[in-house]
Structure formats: C-alpha cells, structure tokens
C-alpha cells in the first residue's frame, strides 16, 4: 500500500532532517533538564504540605517534565508544515502522486519518534539524579506508550491548525494560547488533590493531566491499572480524534 510506504519514507526523511539541525535538538533536551534541576530545588519545600503524595519533589516532578517536553515538542510541529508551505515544499509534493494522508502521518510520527528518544533521555538523567522508577524498565516502556499517544494527539492538533492558519504568526499565538494553560492547569506541577475545585474539574478534561498521572503512577507507585488504563484510553481517543481531524483538514484544504 502506497500510504504505508509513503509514510515510511517521509518518516525517515523527517528524522534525518531533524538530526541535521542539532542545535534544535540540543535546546529541546537542555531545557527540560533545566526544569528538572531548577524546579526540584525551587519547590523543594512543597513536599512538606499536608496531602502531598511524594517525599521528593524531583521524583514527583520528573514525569511532569517528560510530559512537558512531549507537549511542547509536539505542539510546535505544525510550524514546520507552515515552513514547508511557504518554501513550496508542500506544493511540490502535492503535485506528485504521493499519498496525501502520508504527508501528515510521516511528519507527525517522525516528530513523535524524536520525542520518545528525548523522553527516555530525561528518564535516564532523572534516574542518575536519584529517581528510582517503581515499575523499573518495563514501566518506562509503558510510559513510551503514553508519550506516543500524547505526542500524536498534539502534533495532530498542531498540524491541523497549521493548515487552517497558513501563517506563522497566528499559529504561534494560538499554540501558546492552548499549551500554556493546558500545562499549568494540569497536575504536572501540583498533585490534583491540592488544586482548587474548579481546576480539578478542568483537569479531568485535560489530556495532559491524564498523561502526567499515568506516568507518575508508574514512577512513584506501581502498576495502578485502575488509573493507567482509563488514562491510556482517553489519550488514545484524543490521538485518534486529532489525527483524523488533521488528515481530513489536510485533504479538504489541499483539494
């Protein structure tokens, strides 16, 4: 099937090209490490609050940093689609027989693959800093599933918005408008129980919270299937919905 082979070639192309701009990868990796080191110091005292579920903020926050990297990393992928539109790269492809859907799938999967590697590196460094992961290596593999689902969801959203906006400036505003509140209203930095009531309600509709909580459960507690399974289902639903939306937007807009 052409859709599979085209997706594969575009996936490989995306990764190759990304690796050729190492400064971009470097920043994306150093930034979460800064969060990891700085925030775990800044919020050290938070663990003494009554109701806080972990004895170390670093341990509590490490899953948050992983998810943050994935969220911001994937939410900006649409920017590159706009770049490709502007440079005529997209038109050139669209005038060839390449599968339309593959153009979206290849770049989304390529971006997510890089995010998976970044997430694993963050886990590794957190482990060196003294975070022992309750479920060990198999648990880390399960977090990869979470990373993929969340990444696909937000990369899909971002690419769909890129097609809709066609311009970098409104896209930048819109991505910030979506990702910043969605991150700070999640339980990435504070346990859900300590958040005010209405934010707790908002949190249940926030895919980032579901991603953070399933990963946190794997890191701190263990295989809490009653938490992890519903979270995975919700994230899978978001991923499928966003990709369906992005690809249909793409087919609709590109004739």
């Amino acid at each position: 099937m052409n859709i599979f082979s085209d997706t594969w070639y575009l996936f490989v192309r995306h990764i190759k090209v990304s690796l050729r701009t190492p400064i971009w990868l470097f920043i994306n990796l150093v930034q979460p490490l800064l969060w990891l080191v700085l925030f775990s110091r800044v919020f050290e005292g938070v663990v003494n609050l009554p109701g806080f579920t972990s004895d170390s903020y670093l341990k509590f926050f490490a899953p948050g940093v992983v998810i943050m990297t994935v969220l911001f990393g994937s939410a900006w992928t649409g920017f590159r689609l706009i770049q490709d539109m502007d440079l005529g790269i997209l038109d050139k492809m669209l005038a060839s027989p390449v599968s339309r859907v593959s153009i979206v799938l290849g770049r989304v999967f390529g971006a997510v693959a890089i995010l998976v590697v970044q997430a694993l590196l963050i886990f590794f460094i957190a482990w060196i800093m003294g975070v022992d992961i309750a479920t060990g290596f198999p648990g880390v593999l399960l977090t990869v599933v979470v990373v993929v689902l969340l990444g696909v969801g937000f990369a899909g959203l971002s690419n769909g918005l890129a097609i809709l906006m066609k311009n970098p400036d409104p896209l930048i505003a819109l991505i910030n408008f979506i990702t910043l509140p969605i991150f700070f209203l999640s339980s990435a930095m504070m346990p859900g129980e300590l958040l005010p009531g209405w934010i707790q309600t908002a949190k249940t509709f926030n895919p980032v919270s579901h991603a953070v909580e399933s990963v946190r459960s794997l890191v701190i507690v263990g295989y809490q299937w009653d938490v992890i399974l519903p979270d995975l289902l919700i994230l899978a639903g978001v991923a499928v919905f966003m990709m369906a939306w992005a690809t249909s937007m793409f087919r609709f807009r590109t004739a």
Partner: protein
Amino acid sequence: MPTISVTDLVKVYKGGIRAVDGVSFEVEAGELFAFLGPNGAGKSTTIKILTTLLKPTSGTAQVLGMDVRAHPAAVRRSIGYAAQDVGIDENATGRENLTLYGHFYRLDGVTIRRRVGELLELMDLTRDANRLVSTYSGGMRKRLDLAISLLHQPRVLILDEPTVGLDPQTRGHIGDYIHNLGKELGITVFFTTHYMDEADKLADRIAILDHGKIIALGTPLELKKEVSGDVVTLSLTADVASSSDGALEHSRELLQRQPFVRELQVLNSGLPITINVYVEKGETDLPRILRAMDSDGLTVQTISLSRPTLDDVFIKYTGRTMRDEEGRRTTWFQTDRNRRRLR
C-alpha cells in the same frame, strides 16, 4: 489530441479576484509553449490548476486527455512540475531529494538508482549529489528541481517561472536545458515567464496574458509582425513655460499629424515624458520626428530606434510596458532563505 487543452478556464479567489478570466488554449505534443505576462496576470494560477493544486471555478483543463478535476491522481502521475519556488528540502542532499521523489513516483529501487544517476548526469550535478542542498547555488537548486520533475519520464513538463531570481548567465543555462528537454527528448513543455527575451528565444508559441485573459497568441514571429515597422522611443522634458501635461498634449498632436506615424503609445506621462512612436521605416523617419519636434519648440532629450519586441506587442494590446509591477510577497522563511543564498 492536444497534450494540454484548456477551455474557458475561470478562477475566482475568495474576495472576488478573477485571477484567470476565461482562458482557452491548446498545446500540441512536443511543443514548447510559453505563458508570458506581468506578475498577477494569472500565469501561476493556471499552472496550479493544471498541476491539480487548485480547483478551477469553472471551465475545463485536460492534460493528455485527462481532466484535472476528474482524474487528479492520473494527471499527477503523468506530469513533471517545477514551481517558481524550488520546493526542495535544504537539509537533505541532492541525491536524497531525488530518491524520495523516486519513491513517490512509484519507481522500484533499481530504477530509482538508475534514473537518479542519469538525471544527476544530465543536469551536471553528479559531483554535488551528496552535498546538502543548503550549500547549492540558485542555479543548482533549479537544476535539481528540474531533475526531480523528470524522474518518471513524463511526457509533459510544467514549469512556473523556471528562471526567476537567477542571474542572467544562469538564466541562459537553464534556458538551454529547457530547450534540450523539448527538442531532444521530445517532451512537451509548458512554461510561464515574465521575461520577454526568454519566451522569444525558447518558445514555439506564446500566449500573452494580462489580467487573467489571453490578449495575443501565436509564434514569436507572428506576434512581432503585428507590430509592423520600427519603434522610435523618445523622451522629453517640459519647457519652463508649459506644464508636463501641456508638453505631452502638444507633442502628441504634433506626432499624430505626421503622415508616417502609424501609432503612438505614451509610456510615461510624467517627467521625463516617454513616448513610443511606431513608424514604417525608422532610419528615415527618426530624423523627421526630430525636425518636427524641434521646429515646434519641443526639446527631445533622448531618442532611440529599435525593432519591435514582444514588449511592443504587449504595449500595443495593453498600453502598458511589462515591467515588474509589484514585488512578490516574501514570507519569513523565504527572506531567510534569500539571505542565505546571498552569502
């Protein structure tokens, strides 16, 4: 059956701009056919419809007998396309870009390797094949773009402004490549340009486009014949006493009274006033114009004599010269790319 057949094509963009306004033409097999016109004439829009990137508002466009709206996939398989912007990934090598498109055109691995080798050779890129495109010059990028469009051995090549943004020497080179593709490989080439000399030199037939309509169509020779005789271009400044309007009116009346003047075309009504005078025999009529102007107290600043060019054809039909009337919109990314190219 013509290779390209367009009938009553109309494209109205959102906001009511009629970019293409009832265009009809046919391109025969093996022909080099040029769309000539200023920016905004509707050239690129027509190309985008022919390459299935845009849907027409009304009318039909067929490539090799296939309707672009009914069979877009089949059209894409059979055409080669190179756009005005070289749509090539800079962070990939020339060979990687070619190979990727080899897959898109459904060639098998062996064929891809063979075709990539052949085309790199044809476009003189073999030595640079494994370098990143970001290190390529503008001309090399254009050649690579042409190579990609030839991978699947298309019978039709559609090129949008193939030489825009290149220095004159490189423009000539790309022109030679296009000529060879058409004349040696027998590929039908449909291209747009706003360079008169290029259309004149390369094309078998030319359609001159303005405001979405074809205003003239024929071989370069036929078109130039429509402007018979010679062209005398003169410029003058107004006297201290009279305004530029007055001087223009005065000289226009004077010139129209001369029996040997066939037609007048005012190119610039401000200062310096510039007028094209179409005459039978330039060598004898030029001094007569000078004398007449002199005796009426009009000071001619410069005067020149030329054979009619396609520009004169354009002027004849539109009353304007075909200069770059407006700059193209450049975006962030393109500005960035241009900056790098300058280095």
